[in-house]
C-alpha cells in the first residue's frame, strides 16, 4: 500500500481515538460501526418483525389460515380479507403471516446445523492438520460437489414416503439443505482457522500448557468466527429462498404445512387473472431474504477494516 494511503489511514485512526485511544476489542469496534449503519437497523427491525410473526402469528391476525370461504375464492383484496383470498378460499393475509413460521424455522435450523457441523469440521481439519486434514478436505469436496438444489431434490425424492408430519417435513427439508450446505462453511472456517493459528497468542497459549480444547474455544474460534458469521447470515436468506423453491417445485414443504413457497406454487396457475395471489407471498419472501442479506452485508462491513 502506498505511503500516502498509510498516512491517511494512520491519521484517521489517530483522530478517531483522540491521539491516545483506549484499547478496544475487535468485537466492540465492529459493534460500534455496526450501530452507525442504517442498513443494519432496517434489517434488524425487519427480522425482528418476521421472527415475531413466526412465534406469535396471532399477534398479527385473528383469522384462521385454514378457514376456507370457498364462495369468495380468488377474490381481490378487500376490507374483510386484506390480501384477498387464494384458490381454495383461504385468507391470503392470514396464510402469509402463518407462513412465516415455516420459512423462519427452516432458515434458522438449517443455519444452526450448518454452522455447528461445518464450523466444527472446518476447525478440526485445520487444527489437526496432516492426513486428517486431507481426509476431511476430500470428504468436504465430495459433498461440496453436489449443487444445492439438485442434491436437495435427490434427498427429498429418496425420502418421499417417510416423515410426513408437519415437523417431519420441515425436518426433512432442513436435513436436505444442511447436508449440502455445511461444506462451504467448513471450507471457510478451515481457512479462517489456518490464518489464525500461526498467531503468537495461540503459540503462547500452547506454551503455557493450555489444553487443545481451551485453545480452540478461547483463542481460535473467537478470532476465526468472523467470515463464517457473515456468510451464514447471508446463507440464512438463501436457505429460505431454497426452501421456497423446493416447495414451488412440489418437493419441499407440502400442504398441510403453510409456507410461502406452497402459497406461491398454488398461485402460479392463476397468474394471468389473479396476480394478487402470487404477489403477497412473493413480497414477504423477498423482503425476508433481502433483510438477511442486508444484515450479512452490514456485519461484513463492520468487521472489515478496509471498508470503514
Amino acid at each position, binding site marked *: 500500500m502506498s505511503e500516502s494511503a498509510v498516512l491517511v489511514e494512520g491519521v484517521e485512526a489517530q483522530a478517531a481515538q483522540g491521539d491516545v485511544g483506549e484499547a478496544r476489542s475487535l468485537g466492540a469496534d465492529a459493534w460500534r460501526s455496526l450501530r452507525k449503519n442504517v442498513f443494519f437497523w432496517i434489517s434488524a427491525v425487519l427480522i425482528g418483525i418476521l421472527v415475531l410473526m413466526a412465534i406469535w402469528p396471532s399477534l398479527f391476525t385473528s383469522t384462521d389460515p385454514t378457514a376456507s370461504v370457498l364462495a369468495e375464492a380468488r377474490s381481490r383484496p378487500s376490507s374483510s380479507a386484506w390480501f384477498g383470498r387464494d384458490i381454495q378460499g383461504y385468507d391470503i393475509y392470514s396464510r402469509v403471516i402463518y407462513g412465516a413460521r415455516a420459512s423462519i424455522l427452516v432458515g434458522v435450523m438449517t443455519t444452526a446445523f450448518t454452522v455447528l457441523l461445518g464450523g466444527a469440521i472446518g476447525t478440526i481439519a485445520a487444527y489437526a492438520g496432516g492426513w486428517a486434514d486431507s481426509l476431511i478436505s476430500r470428504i468436504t469436496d465430495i459433498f461440496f460437489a453436489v449443487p444445492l*438444489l439438485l442434491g436437495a*431434490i435427490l434427498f427429498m425424492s429418496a425420502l418421499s414416503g417417510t416423515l410426513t408430519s408437519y415437523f417431519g417435513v420441515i425436518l426433512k427439508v432442513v436435513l436436505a439443505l444442511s447436508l449440502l450446505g455445511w461444506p462451504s462453511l467448513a471450507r471457510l472456517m478451515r481457512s479462517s482457522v489456518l490464518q489464525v493459528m500461526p498467531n503468537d497468542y495461540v503459540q503462547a497459549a500452547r506454551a503455557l500448557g493450555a489444553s487443545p480444547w481451551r485453545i480452540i474455544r478461547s483463542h481460535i474460534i473467537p478470532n476465526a468466527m468472523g467470515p463464517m458469521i457473515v456468510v451464514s447470515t447471508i446463507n440464512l436468506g438463501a436457505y429460505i429462498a431454497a426452501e421456497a423453491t423446493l416447495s414451488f417445485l412440489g418437493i419441499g414443504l407440502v400442504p398441510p404445512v403453510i409456507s410461502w413457497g406452497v402459497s406461491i406454487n398454488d398461485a*402460479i396457475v392463476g397468474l394471468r387473472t389473479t396476480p394478487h395471489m402470487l404477489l403477497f407471498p412473493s413480497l414477504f419472501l423477498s423482503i425476508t431474504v433481502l433483510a438477511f442479506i442486508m444484515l450479512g452485508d452490514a456485519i461484513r462491513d463492520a468487521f472489515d477494516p478496509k471498508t470503514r
Partner: protein
Amino acid sequence: MGKYIVRRLLQMIPVIIGTTFLIFYMVFAMPGDPTAGKCGERPCSAAYIAKYRAEHNLDDPLPVQYAKYVGKLAQGDLGTNQYGVPVKDDLKSRYLVTGKLALMAITVEIVIGIIAGILAGIRKGKFIDNLVLISTLFVISIPVFVIGALAQYFLGVRLGLFPVTVTQKASFYELLMPAFVLGSLSIAYVARLTRTNLVENLRADYVRTAIAKGLSRRRAVGLHALRNSMIPVVTFIGFDFGALLGGAIVTERIFNIQGIGGYIFRGIQMRDGVAVVGAVTALVIVYLFVNLLVDILYGVLDPRISHE
C-alpha cells in the same frame, strides 16, 4: 501445464467416486422402503417392487450394489421410469434444449455481469455503482421463480414482447426471456464479485507500478487490474453452473420448456422417483465435468496455481 492437468484429473477421481456414492446411498441405501412414493399416489405393485429390486440389485451386499450402479452409470443407464421407458431415452432429445438454455444464460451472465461489475468498480461510489449494487441486491433477494413469474406476466402476457411459453422447437427468440430469468441471479453475483475484485485490485501495488511506468490509466486498469480481477470470477462461474442447472428446473417449469428441467419437474409431480433421480444424476455428472474444465482454465489464467 500438462502436469497440472493430470493432477487435476487425478484429484477428480475420488470426487466422482465419492459423489456418485453419496447419490447412490441417498437414493438406494437409506433405511426405509426404496419404492415408497415412486409409483404415483398409490403404493407400488408387487411386480414392480420385485422388478425394481432386481434391476437395482437391492439384494446384493452394499459394495456390490454400488459397483453395479457405477457400471450402469458408465454405460449411461439411468434406470427406467414408472412407465417402463429407460430414462436415458427420455433425456436424449432434451439435452439439446436445456443445453441451449444454459448456454444462453451463461453468455448473458458473463457479458452483462462482467460489464456491470467493471462499470461499478471503476466508478466506485458514483451513481452507476450504487445503481448496480441496489439492483443486484434486489435480484438476489427475489427468488428465481418469482422473477420468472413476474417476467412471464409483465413481459409476456401484458406487453406481449416475448412468447409466454416455449414450444417444441425452442427457438433462440423463444428462449431469450427464460435465459435472462435463469441467468438473473448469476448476473447479480458476477457483477458484485467483479466489482469487489476490481476495486481491490485497483488499489494493488502493481497498478501503482504500471502507472509509474508511464502506462495510460486505461491500460493499467483495463489490462493489468482486470486480468487479475477476472480470475476469481471464472472460478465462480464454474461453481455457479450447478446453481444454473438447478434453476433450469424452475425456469423450464414456468415457461413450459421441454428440457431436462421440465422432465424432472414432471417426474416430481407424477411421483416418478426413478425418472427424477436419473435425470438429476445426469445433471450432477455434467456439472462435475464442467467444474473440472473450469479448474483447468483457472490454472491457465493464474500462473501461480499451475506452478504449485
